[in-house]
C-alpha cells in the first residue's frame, strides 16, 4: 500500500478504492465470485484480508461437536446437485473422495475453525458424512507401528 492514501481503520481491510485483484494479481476476478478460482500463492496472502468469520456469518461454534482436525469427511455424490454456494459447494466437490478437516482448510485456504463450522453445517444438512471419534483399537496401533517401521 502506498503512503499517500487515507488511513484505514484496520490494516487488513481491502481499501475501498482498490480491488482485491489489483493487490494480488493482474487477473480480474469473475464478477461476483472472485474467490472461486484455483488458489494461487498470492491468494494465500489475500486470504487474511477477509475476516475469516465472515464466511460463517459470524458463527465460531460448529453445529456439531466431535469434528477433529483429522476427522475424515466425505460427500454424497447427490450433494453435488444441491443448491450450495461458494465454500460449501467447494467442500462438497473436494470431499467426493474422503478428506480430513485439516486438508479441507488447506485447500480452501480457510482457518481450521472456519472450515470446521462449514463442515458441521454440511453434516447437519445431510450433504456430507464424517467419521466419529472412537478409541483406536490395539490391533490398529500395532498396524501403525509396523507400517511406519516399513516405510
Amino acid at each position, binding site marked *: 500500500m502506498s503512503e499517500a492514501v487515507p488511513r484505514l481503520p484496520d490494516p487488513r481491510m481491502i481499501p475501498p478504492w482498490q480491488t482485491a485483484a489489483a493487490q494480488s494479481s493482474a487477473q480480474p476476478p469473475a464478477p461476483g465470485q472472485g474467490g472461486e478460482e484455483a488458489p494461487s500463492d498470492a491468494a494465500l496472502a489475500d486470504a*487474511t484480508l477477509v475476516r*475469516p*468469520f465472515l464466511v460463517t456469518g459470524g458463527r465460531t461454534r460448529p453445529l456439531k461437536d466431535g469434528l477433529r*482436525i483429522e476427522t475424515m469427511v466425505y460427500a454424497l455424490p447427490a450433494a453435488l446437485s444441491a443448491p450450495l454456494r461458494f465454500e460449501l459447494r467447494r467442500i462438497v466437490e473436494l470431499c467426493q473422495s474422503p478428506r*480430513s478437516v485439516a*486438508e479441507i482448510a488447506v485447500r480452501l485456504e480457510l482457518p481450521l475453525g472456519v472450515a470446521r463450522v462449514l463442515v458441521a453445517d454440511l453434516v447437519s444438512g445431510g450433504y456430507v458424512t464424517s467419521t466419529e471419534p472412537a478409541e483406536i483399537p*490395539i490391533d490398529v*496401533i500395532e498396524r501403525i*507401528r509396523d507400517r511406519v517401521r516399513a516405510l
Partner: protein
Amino acid sequence: MFGRSNRATTPLAVKIVISGGFGVGKTTFVGAISEIEPLVTEADLTEVSVGVDDLTGLDGKTTTTVALDFGRITLDESLWLYLFGTPGQDRFAFLWDDLVDGALGAVVLLDTRRIEDCFASLDYFEEQGTPLLLAVNRFDQARRFELEEVREALGVGAEVPIVECDARDRESVKRVLVDLVEQVLARRLGRAALAR
C-alpha cells in the same frame, strides 16, 4: 451414531502431535517424513469475532492467525497417519486442546541448548495424560549430553522414554515415531492388564 459407513473406502485417520519449543525442529521433523507439505492456519475466532483484537505485545503483528505444520503419511489404503506440529508460542495455546484431542500420542522435541523451552509441552501432555516421548534433536553446534543427564535436568520419570534423533533424517524420524507407538502400546496393554 457411528453407524455403517456407506463408504468402505474412508480411511481411518490417526493423529500424532509434534511439540516442543520455538525453533526446535518441528517443521523439519514433519517435513522429513510427510508426503505433503501444506501448512494449515487457524485464527482465534472467539477473540476476533467479539472484536477484542488485543494485540498488545504481539510485535507489530496485526492478526491472530497462526500456521501449523501438518503432514500426512499413507500407511495403507485404509489407514492414514497425520502429524500436527503445535505452534511454538504460548499465545497460541488456545489451539492445543483442539490439536491434542484424540491424538494417539505426542513427540516432544527438545534442544539441549534451550531445554526449558519444552517445559510447557511436557507439562501439558502429562496433565492431559497423552502418551509422550521426548526426542532430543541433535544440533551440530550443541554440546552432547547423555540422555540420562537430560532426564535428570527435566525431572521426568522413567515412564517417559527419551531418545535422540535427527529431525532432518527420515530414518531417524521413523524410529522416533515407532518408539512413540511402542510407548502407546505399552501403556494401553498395561491399562488392559490392570482392568483385568
